């Protein structure tokens, strides 16, 4: 097949120009009935081109807010986001997003779902179907082109969503807990798949997660966030050999990293828990 090599070569050359994300002093406040809440407080970091960076933190640390800000779906924040050195406002063609929620279009079959971004960019039908087929194959769903999402399992649907984002050939991939709704085994195997594709396409990848194993399994670096307001607590280098597969989870180095991250995270997570309990008590008292 000639199509896949053409696509990856394509990505590699342009990645040098724009596959670099800068996040500078982002502050985001929300106005709620109970007052103003600071979700993200002065967060800065870089994602180097071709790097796999994970952001990990307890629920309520503002990581999904950050995801939406970098993806350009959420405005009205302080600070700036740069892609390839240029400040961006709103969505950017180089960025592809994979969402946490069920996001396949139920009225389109697998092929039409994956071809969606190509349809938006105005590719002729034959060509976009050919490219869509390539990415369906990449996530291992050959033979399911004509099925509708309702006929697939949750894991298969998420693979469709991932293939759809990949089909747009983004140099930068943003993923917000893409495996959250899946069981542990599917999560590990799909993680392998994503890593394999990411490595071969040399995509700059930013993964939002609350799963330590997943973060260590996939990442070059892990950014640990604090519980509300979300700040950068620490950035950890993961020095595990590549190429990696999920088999790495049994190695001692892996366990060491997991323990290290958990050490950082435990304090934040228990703060989050106490806070939630206080909220629940407050609601109960009303």
């Amino acid at each position, binding site marked *: 097949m000639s199509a896949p090599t053409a696509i990856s070569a394509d990505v590699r050359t342009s990645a040098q120009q724009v596959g670099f994300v800068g996040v500078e002093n982002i502050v985001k406040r929300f106005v709620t009935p109970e007052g103003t809440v600071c979700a993200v407080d002065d967060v800065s970091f870089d994602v180097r081109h071709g790097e796999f960076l994970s952001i990990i933190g307890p629920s309520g640390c503002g990581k999904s807010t950050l995801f*939406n800000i970098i*993806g*350009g*779906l959420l405005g009205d924040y302080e600070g700036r986001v740069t892609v390839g050195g240029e400040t961006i406002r709103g*969505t950017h*063609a180089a*960025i*592809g*997003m994979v*969402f946490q*929620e*069920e*996001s396949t*279009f*139920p*009225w*389109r079959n697998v092929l039409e779902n994956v071809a*969606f*971004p190509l*349809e*938006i960019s105005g590719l002729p039908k034959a060509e976009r179907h050919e490219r869509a087929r390539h990415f369906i194959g990449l996530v291992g769903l050959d033979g399911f082109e004509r099925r*509708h*999402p*309702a*006929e697939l399992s949750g894991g298969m649907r998420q693979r469709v969503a991932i293939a759809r984002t990949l089909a*747009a050939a983004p140099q930068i991939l943003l993923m917000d807990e893409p495996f959250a709704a899946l069981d542990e085994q599917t999560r590990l195997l799909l993680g392998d798949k994503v890593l394999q594709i990411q490595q071969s396409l040399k995509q700059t990848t930013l993964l939002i997660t609350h799963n330590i194993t997943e973060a260590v399994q996939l990442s070059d670096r892990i950014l640990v966030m604090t519980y509300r307001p979300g700040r950068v607590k620490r950035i950890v280098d993961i020095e595990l050999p590549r190429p990696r597969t999920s088999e790495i989870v049994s190695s001692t180095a892996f366990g060491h990293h997991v323990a290290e991250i958990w050490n950082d995270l435990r304090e934040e997570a228990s703060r989050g828990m106490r806070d939630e309990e206080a909220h629940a008590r407050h609601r109960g008292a009303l």
Partner: protein
Amino acid sequence: MTIGPVVGAGFGRVTVVRVAIILVLLAAWEALARSGLLFRDVVPTLSAIARAFVTLLLQPDFYTNLGWTVGEIALALLVGGVSGLLVGLLLGGSRLLGRAFEPYLYYLGPTPKIIFFPVMIMWFGVGPTSKVALGALSCFFPIALSTAAGMRQIDAVLIRVGRSFRATTSEMVTKIYLPAMREPIVNGVRLGLGVAMIATLLAETKLSNRGFGYLIIQAYSTFDMPRMYAVLIALFALAIAANALIGRFSAYRASRFR
């Protein structure tokens, strides 16, 4: 006691039960007709109804009146449906407009519409236009309400997907909003067809010289009971068929989604 939908009851047995029920009902009807227990002709014999039905279907008159009624209902559905869709999109798209005006539609929806017929006659005369107007008024409400509700029910993540791929506004409407709202809109049209049909036909029975409603009231005033049954049977069959037809457009192959 077993629970849940019927499992194991074979198709064959169901058919047998259905045929049996129909036969029992028909036999009871015939017995009642021949017993003379009820006033004369209120329950005509089956053969009399069958004869009247065949006669009805053979009259060209029947098709002219059917044409008038179908035309009125179709026009009513078009006028009420398009205005309902537009109003629904407006109310569903704006939180302020929705909160301001939807309560009125919500509470006015389930009021009897036929009582507006005198007003429709004053505005549009005694001809078919007043029937169309009443039908349009009736179907406006369910279509506007279900469109508005459908718009609000669109999964927010699907809208974010569209935006993340930088779809234009028109692409968002045609490729995301409308497909996502297909089910509620079709359901609204289905409800709308039901009420438009009732309003139009009732108006025809009240004051008209054509249409299905007129045929019913004509049979009533000449006390031709077999004919009245024949018209009602034809009407119910057509109404049920039309409703089933629209239902087919409802679901994309995703009835199991969620």
